[in-house]
Structures are given as structure tokens and as C-alpha cells.
């Protein structure tokens, strides 16, 4: 394989356990998003749009959906003759197998893969953020600063800074200190978990870190602090624009709702920075004579007879006459029968909400909670559901259901 300037390593092994029911059957990067996409589409599309065509995808947790979704990367135009997408699961050697113990370990275990490409730089990405970013500008910044490592940062509101990994930087953007969740933050520049390293240097740190029994083998906790301690030249690359870690149900819901703004910060309709995904072949959706839709995103193959307000509707959803969907996310192949109500809910694939049923998040102290209904749930006619429902359940008419 010819030498590559930069290889991207995309960490996609996380379970995303805080997404609960949504990640019971698949890894977080494979979770559906925005009416058509999966979360990983954003990072992969960024790679293609930034001219990076060699991407290793590190998988570990329930990877089947992700593996068959990624294939050889054709959807993101990454099925190149020299390059492409390589899925890198943990594997067995002569001495037995080892699971990925941390983000740094995952890269370390695939050192042979990176060596075979012999890149100048390695770009480390995570597969669970929603954002558009031109990585080639970050590489340019890294090269111009003759940096050993560059970390993308975003300015967060000061009052939230203590929830992030914060970079303290000098005026030339050189990183002087990295503090995980500081009580009294000196800066509001949060790490986005996007790193560029010079491969030869990173390689040495990974080998050393691997032998360190006390290390948790994590970039943020171990490798980066060690590099800073050793005085390596590390710079903070400032990113401005939309960026969201969809780590919790609430933030996942918010990120979906953000697409519905009049002028969304992240514009999926921009042809100059397309978000690619695997395209289903479904007919155009049909909006019935008495349907009403506003402030919503609707995908192909849907039949909408009822009302859709401020919601995200995935392909092949049926919404019956008189049904009302508001502030919700409805995934593929869901049926909302006539006169049912869905409010502030996330409804996973194949689920059926019976006639006159009500599925709605309850008001809480800080506004209302979003409820999540899993895959392949059947909610009977006239049932009222105001709690999460795990996948594959049958709910008879009656009151709220606890998660099982």
C-alpha cells in the first residue's frame, strides 16, 4: 500500500450505556439519528469531505449492525483502491486474545495496521459526536505549528466548563495544562476528543503506556497528560460551530431537535458538506388530505395521515388519521395508529402504538422527561405509557410502565 500522509482511527467500540434502551442491541455509533443517519455517519462523512480516505474503525461492543452498515465504506465514498475503511475488532494472537482496555490500548493493539500504512500523522476520532469539521484544516494547523500533538477544542459556556476536560493554553495556543473536570476552570476550552499525533512519537508513548500497570490506557487520562508532563509541543486547535456529544438520552433528543430549528446550526441540507449514509430505496413519503406537518423532518416511505409537529420521522413510518406526534423521534417502520398521541418520546424501530394510545413523557422539575420505547414493542389500543419500555414487550391497556 502506498504511504499515507494521515490515517484516521475512529473509536467506535463504546457501548454508550447511558443511552439505555437505544444501545441494547447495537453500539452507540450505530444508533439512528436525524431521520436517516447513524451517529457514525458524521465522522465518516467528515473524513471523506476532508480528503482522508483511510480510516480504521475500532469496534468491540455488539458490532454486527455497525460492521454490516460500514461494509467497505462505499456509502461515504471511502471504498478506494488505495485506502478505504478497515473494521478493526479485537483479536486473538498466539498468546491469546485481549479486549480493548481503553482508547489508547485500542490504537496500540492495532499498531501493525498503522505501521503497514506508515503515515506521518494519525488522527484519532470518536464515533459518537454530531458535528461537521474539516480535519484537513486541523492537519494544516498541526503541520504549521510543527506540533507533536494537536487537540481540537471548543469554547463551552464557563458555567459548564467544570464538566469537561479543559485545556489551559498560552497565547500561541500551545497547551500548558490539561485538567479533567476542574472545579475552578481557568479556561473554557474543552477537548472534543479529536487528536492528531505524529505517528512515530505516539507509537513510543503507546508502547510505554502499555507497560504501565497503573494506566487505564486512555488518551485523555493517561497518554495526553504524560506527553504534557514530558514537555512535548501540544497545541489546541480551536473549533467553532455545532458539536454535540450525544451521550445521554436527553442530549441525543436535543441534538435531533436542533435539526428542526428554522436555521439549524448544523445544516444537513448543505450540498458543499454532505452527510453521507447508506441510502434505502423507498418511495417518496405521502402526506394525506388532512395531514398537518410543521417544523419537522420526514424521511422516505412514510404514510402520514395525522399531525406531526416538531418531530423527526425516519423511513417507512405510518401515522394514522387523527394521530398526533409532537417533540418526538420516530424510528423506521413504526406504526402510530389512528388517534394515538406521542409526545416527547423516542420510539425505536418496528414498534406499534395502538389506536387512541397515549405515549408521553411526564413533566418533571426541569421541564419534562423524554421517554424511550424500545424496538418491536406493541402498545395496545388506549394504553397510556409514561415510562420507558424495553424492547420486545407487549403492553396491554393500562397505566405507565417501568423499564424492565
Amino acid at each position, binding site marked *: 500500500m502506498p504511504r499515507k500522509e494521515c490515517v484516521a482511527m475512529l473509536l467506535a467500540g463504546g457501548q454508550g450505556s447511558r443511552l439505555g434502551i437505544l444501545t441494547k442491541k447495537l453500539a452507540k455509533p450505530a444508533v439512528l439519528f436525524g431521520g*436517516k443517519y447513524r451517529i457514525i455517519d458524521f465522522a465518516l462523512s467528515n473524513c471523506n469531505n476532508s480528503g482522508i480516505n483511510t480510516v480504521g474503525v475500532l469496534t468491540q461492543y455488539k458490532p454486527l449492525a455497525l460492521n454490516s452498515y460500514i461494509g467497505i465504506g462505499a456509502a461515504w465514498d471511502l471504498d478506494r483502491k488505495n485506502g478505504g475503511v478497515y473494521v478493526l475488532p479485537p483479536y486473538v494472537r498466539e498468546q491469546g486474545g485481549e479486549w480493548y482496555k481503553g482508547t489508547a490500548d485500542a490504537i496500540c493493539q492495532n499498531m501493525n495496521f498503522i505501521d503497514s500504512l506508515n503515515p506521518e500523522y494519525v488522527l484519532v476520532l470518536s464515533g459518537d459526536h454530531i458535528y461537521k469539521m474539516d480535519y484537513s484544516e486541523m492537519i494544516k494547523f498541526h503541520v504549521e505549528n510543527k506540533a507533536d500533538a494537536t487537540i481540537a477544542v471548543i469554547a463551552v459556556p464557563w458555567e459548564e466548563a467544570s464538566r469537561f476536560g479543559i485545556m489551559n493554553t498560552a497565547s500561541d495556543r500551545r497547551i500548558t495544562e490539561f485538567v479533567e473536570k476542574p472545579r475552578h476552570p481557568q479556561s473554557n476550552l474543552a477537548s472534543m476528543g479529536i487528536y492528531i499525533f505524529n505517528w512515530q512519537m505516539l507509537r513510543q508513548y503507546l508502547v510505554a503506556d502499555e507497560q504501565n500497570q497503573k494506566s487505564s490506557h486512555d488518551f485523555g487520562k493517561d497518554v495526553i497528560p504524560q506527553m504534557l508532563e514530558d514537555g512535548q509541543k501540544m497545541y489546541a486547535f480551536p473549533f467553532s460551530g455545532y458539536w454535540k456529544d450525544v451521550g445521554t438520552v436527553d442530549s441525543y433528543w436535543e441534538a435531533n431537535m436542533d435539526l428542526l430549528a428554522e436555521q439549524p446550526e448544523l445544516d444537513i441540507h448543505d450540498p458543499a458538506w454532505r452527510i453521507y449514509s447508506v441510502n434505502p430505496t423507498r418511495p*417518496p413519503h405521502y402526506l394525506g388530505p388532512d395531514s398537518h406537518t410543521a417544523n419537522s*423532518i*420526514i424521511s422516505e416511505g412514510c404514510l402520514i395521515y395525522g399531525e406531526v409537529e416538531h418531530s423527526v420521522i425516519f423511513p417507512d413510518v405510518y401515522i394514522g388519521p387523527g394521530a398526533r406526534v409532537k417533540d418526538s423521534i420516530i424510528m423506521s417502520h413504526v406504526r402510530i395508529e389512528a388517534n394515538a398521541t406521542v409526545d416527547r418520546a423516542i420510539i425505536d424501530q418496528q414498534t406499534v402504538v395502538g389506536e387512541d394510545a397515549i405515549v408521553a413523557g411526564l413533566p418533571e422539575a426541569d421541564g419534562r422527561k423524554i421517554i424511550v420505547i424500545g424496538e418491536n414493542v406493541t402498545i395496545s389500543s388506549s394504553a397510556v405509557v409514561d415510562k420507558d419500555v424495553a424492547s420486545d414487550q407487549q403492553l396491554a391497556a393500562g397505566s405507565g410502565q417501568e423499564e424492565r
Partner: protein
Amino acid sequence: MDLMGVINLYESEELLQELTRHRPLAALPFGGRYRLIDFVLSNMVNSGIANVGILFKDKYRSLMDHLRSGKEWDLARKRDGLVLMPPSYSAYPGVGRCGGEVDSFFSNLDYLRFSRQKYVVIAGSSVLCNLNYQPALDYHQRTGADVTVLYTDNKCLNDCAGAVLVEVAADGRVTDMEVAASANRLGRLSLGMYIMKRELLIDLIDNCVAHGGYDFVKHCLIRRLEFLKVFGFKHDGYVARISSLSNYFQHNMELLNPNVWQELFSSSGPIYTKVKDEPPSKYKGGSKVTNSLVAGGCIIEGCVENSILFRGVTVHKGAHIKNSIVMQKGIIEGGVMLDQVICDKNVHIKAERQLKGDRGYPLVVKKGMVV
């Protein structure tokens, strides 16, 4: 499956006017995101056919772009798959360069000879339906027919010139067959789909060329009707034959009936087409869309009723589209009123323009026009 397909693109398209000036009928956009050829191709693939030859006529650039390797229809195969048969050229002395479809068939006869399937189904692209060829093939084998013609009980009502009509006896035998000229003498509309043994097709074409014939139906089939055992197989589902602007418009509008929508797009398998990377469509506050089909990538702020929007159409606030078809990437500005209009691809209607056609004679805005 022991059946191969041949799609014959020698079809009459004069009555479609401006819509087929740059593209063959087979590449005409339909139903929000398809082209006509998608229907017959998907039917073949959904029936298990893995070897499909396409007999090209002219203006094939858009069609070549659409089909490419055939991957979208699962026909990018190492064996068989999609085989493009361009118009005949001077390879066979004695057959003129601009000969008819039979000459073109004849110059591609080697492809038929080297195919491995025993049976062949020949179809055009202008008749839209969703069917599986297996029952028709079973019927063909059971009756021992030489040729089985698929037909519908519906009559041809609208712009029938060029339609193939048949008379079918009670035992299924086709007793008469005609290509409608000005009057419709026979009762039933054929789907223009014929099943026969591959060897028979080769023989019919060779014989036809040798006797100076050039029109497949008229000269290879109708002229020999009394010597062949021709049976009819009735298809009961929805059928749309596209041959003129007015029936093109009418059949598009029929898709606003969800029963037609569901039957045509999924009754015996999905209709495949070339996919594009479009985001889902967005309905902004103030939009009002009823009884309409909307494909991906649209942004809608205005009012749309009884209409079909193709991929990537933008409808600005205050625009009003009714009983109309807006193809790919159309931009409809504020204050515009469209009624009974077909906007071809990449049309831009500027603010406050009002366009109105008639149901029987919709107004066509040419590809790429700014009005």
C-alpha cells in the same frame, strides 16, 4: 431461475413532447424519484432474473448514467447481470445503421445465443406495474404455449396509438393482436411483455430479418400469429401505460391514491432506483402540504396540494403549488402559483409568477428553465 429478461427501448415517445427531447422514454422521471425503466427492471430482479439485456435506441446518455454497473438493481454480477445492447452499427453488412428494433436485436443475437437461460421475457419500459414473472412463466410452461403475452382486462382509454391490443379466447388463446393505429379494434391492453423460449426468440428474429421485417410486434409476432401458439396471461393489478403528456400526468396523479402508491411500489417487491445522498425533507413552520408525494431533500415553507415533488425541491414561503409535478432541484419562489404544471429538472420559478395548464394538457416547463 431459468428466465432471462430483454428490455426493448424501441418505444414511441412523440406524444411526450419536450419531456423526451433530451432523454429516452425509459429515462423519464416518474413518481417522485424513479425513472420509467426502474419498474420493469425491478420486476425482473424481484422475480429472480439475473440476466437482463437492454436494447438501446438513442439519447442514452442519461440512461447510461442512471444504470451504470447495475449495482442498484443487484445486477452488477460477474456472470450475467446487466448487458447493454447499443443500436446496431455496421458490424453486420447488409443491415443498415439506422435499422429498426429487429435489426438491432439481430446485431445483438450473439448475446442471446450465449445466454444460458431457457426462457426469455421481453418487455418495454413504458408500461408500469408491479408484478412477478414466475406465475406467468408457470402458466407458459403449463399451457405449452409458444408465446405468452401478458395483458390486463382494462381497456386502453387515453392516447392509445402504438398500444398492443389483444383478443383472448376463453381457453386463453390469443386470437387476434394489433398495434393500435387510430381506432382500437380489440378489447384488451397487452402489457407489451412476451415470454417464450430463448431459442424461439432467436428464430423469430432471424426469420423476421430474412423476410424484411423491422418491427418486432408487427412483423415477428402479428404476421406469424396463425403459425404460433400464443396464449394470454392476465395481470390483475394496477397498470399504467405512459405514451403521452396527458397520460403521463394522469398516472403520476394516480399515485396520490395510497392504494395505488402501495401496490405500485411494493406489492410484489420494492422498486429499485439509483440512490442519491439526500437528507430527509424538512417542513418548516407555516408549511401546508396535503395529499402530496414528497421525495427526499426538499425544503418546504409554502403550500403544496395534490402534487408530486421530486428530490431536492425548494418551496418558499407564500408559494402555492397544486395539481402539479416539480422535478429534481426545482426552486419555487414566494408568491408563485402553479396549477396543472409539470416542471422538468432544475427549473426555477421566480417570485409571483403564475402558471396554469389544463388537466388534459398540462403546461410543461422545460429542463433548466428560469421563468
